[in-house]
């Protein structure tokens, strides 16, 4: 394993700027956000815990032009690829779901494909947990084990570096002078930190009594007619934040610009919680009631995806819990689904 000192890591970020548009997590108050890297500032936090916004935003943009007029080329945005630094394990699991939808399954999406081919992911171990973190309930550890180019584990003086792809390997070779071989005792430091963070997540799970994923099988189907959905949807204000903030949610709206002279088709993140999501032109709506849409959101995550892709479309990141103005808590819903008679 390789080691990079903090000073050399800053140099690495500067080098990456030539080829990439580099984004790093910065801390503002108690929260972390991705910010375009210019110079190394005090607010940059590579480790700690997940950002507010999901890293999927670098791969399918919240709003992007997908077709212009009748031209048959793909209107890729004229920009450098992204290097996203400090991505956490929960976001990486999100890409498993996004990949299934946009890349590996039936038809391929050219915009997502290009972003996946070109963007660089330098992930990082979590060095703390926030109170909504419950990744371990989804069988996911709070440190990346796969699906990254490089992974950083913060230790005293710098980071231990894992290589996860050929591109990561090539980067280390090219910037060889910035990296050193791992020193004695560094792995132990990393292991201690990983255990400490895992325990913090475990404590979260115990405190909220969150059921583990081995108990999710078939629960949505079994509780399909349950009162749970109506009860839980009572406070929902239909804002769609739970969808847009989710690393696994992928739905979008195709929107044609209202300009006959310049035909442009936009793709905009959409939310299945919004009333018209499944409505057809004639007016029929298979999910006319809000609670049906809440149920549908859980069905998609905990019934559809395990059936078609053998994966629960939840990463335990807790973003939907933090984002919900109505305090609807996915952990509580899962608990009811698993435990209620």
């Amino acid at each position: 394993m390789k080691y990079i000192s903090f000073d050399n890591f800053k140099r690495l970020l500067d080098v990456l700027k030539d080829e990439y548009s580099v984004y790093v997590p910065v801390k503002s108050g108690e929260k972390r956000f991705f910010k375009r890297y210019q110079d190394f500032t005090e607010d940059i936090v590579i480790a700690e815990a997940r950002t507010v916004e999901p890293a999927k935003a670098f791969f399918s943009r919240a709003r992007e032009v997908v077709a212009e007029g009748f031209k048959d080329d793909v209107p890729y945005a004229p920009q450098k690829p992204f290097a996203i630094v400090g991505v956490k394990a929960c976001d990486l699991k999100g890409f498993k779901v996004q990949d299934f939808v946009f890349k590996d399954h039936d038809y391929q999406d050219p915009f997502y494909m290009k972003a996946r081919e070109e963007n660089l992911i330098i992930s990082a171990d979590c060095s703390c947990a926030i109170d909504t973190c419950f990744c371990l309930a989804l069988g996911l550890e709070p440190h990346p084990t796969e699906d990254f180019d490089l992974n950083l584990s913060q230790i005293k003086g710098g980071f231990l570096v894992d290589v996860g792809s050929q591109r990561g390997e090539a980067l280390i070779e090219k910037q060889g002078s910035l990296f050193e071989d791992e020193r004695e005792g560094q792995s132990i430091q990393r292991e201690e930190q990983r255990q400490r963070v895992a325990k913090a997540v475990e404590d979260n799970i115990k405190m909220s009594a969150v059921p583990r994923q081995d108990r999710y099988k078939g629960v949505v189907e079994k509780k399909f007619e349950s009162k749970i959905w109506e009860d839980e949807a009572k406070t929902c204000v239909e804002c769609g934040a739970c969808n847009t903030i989710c690393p696994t949610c992928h739905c979008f709206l195709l929107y044609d610009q209202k300009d006959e002279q310049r035909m442009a088709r936009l793709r905009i993140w959409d939310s299945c919680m919004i009333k018209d999501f499944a409505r057809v032109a004639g007016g029929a709506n298979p999910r006319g009631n809000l609670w049906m849409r809440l149920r549908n959101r859980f069905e998609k995550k905990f019934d559809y995806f395990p059936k078609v892709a053998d994966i629960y479309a939840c990463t335990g990141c807790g973003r939907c819990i933090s984002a919900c103005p109505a305090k609807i808590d996915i952990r509580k819903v899962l608990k009811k689904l698993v435990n209620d008679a």
Partner: protein
Amino acid sequence: MHKHKNPYRSIEAEVLEVIPETPSIKTIRFSPKEEISFVTGQFVEITIPGVGEAPFTPSSRPAVKEMMEVTVMKVGKVTDKIHELKKGDIIGVRGPFGKGYPLDEFKGKEILVVGGGCGFAPLRSLMYSLFDRSDEFKKLFFRGGCRTPKELVYRDETGQWGKRKDLNIKLTVDKGDDKWKGNVGVVTTILNDVKMDYKEGIAVVCGPPIMMKFATKKLLEMGFREENLYLSMEKNMSCGIGKCGHCRIGTYYACKDGPVFKYSQIKGFSNIWD
């Protein structure tokens, strides 16, 4: 570089003719500037520049390559604009998407086609496809219904179909008028005189959800097998390639796995008729 095709881009098409069918339904004939081959039952997304797109199953004969037709009921933003189209106007077409009717699986069988209202549109394309290879099927039945004689689409054509030897056709209206000499009643009331082996036969249903629901119930009672019952599901198809999420039915997307489904595929899912 990237040689991916752009699945979100529409092909330019010119409107050749606009044919009024009923007070609320028009057929638009257009010629795409690039050839679009489709299998009957597949759908396309039609774009009105500056307004938006909406999904339609072509009502024309797939074997005719130079032009395509969609039959459109005026129900919303895009369809209002479609009804304003004139010869020479430019529209966009994207597709075809989904799976059509598996005609090869119908070989050697008796086929009953049941349509309601604007559901005649995809079925017109299906009927021409069946007529084109009519010697491969044992016998064809068509049963169609709509609310009033005024709302009956393709009236001249269905009149012509009445003269065909390979087809047994009967139409009905919910409420007749002075000139109507045919059956009066919902479409399920004219299914009983279809003389065929229900257990081995194929049934295809397309129409408004309520009609599909009751026709399906009736056909199952008559003895049709769930896996021989083909339904065209109207959902909010948008991207056409199973990505945007709007048209999910259980473990399927209507846009890529349908819009034609066997009843046996979807019967277990919730709210299929809504």
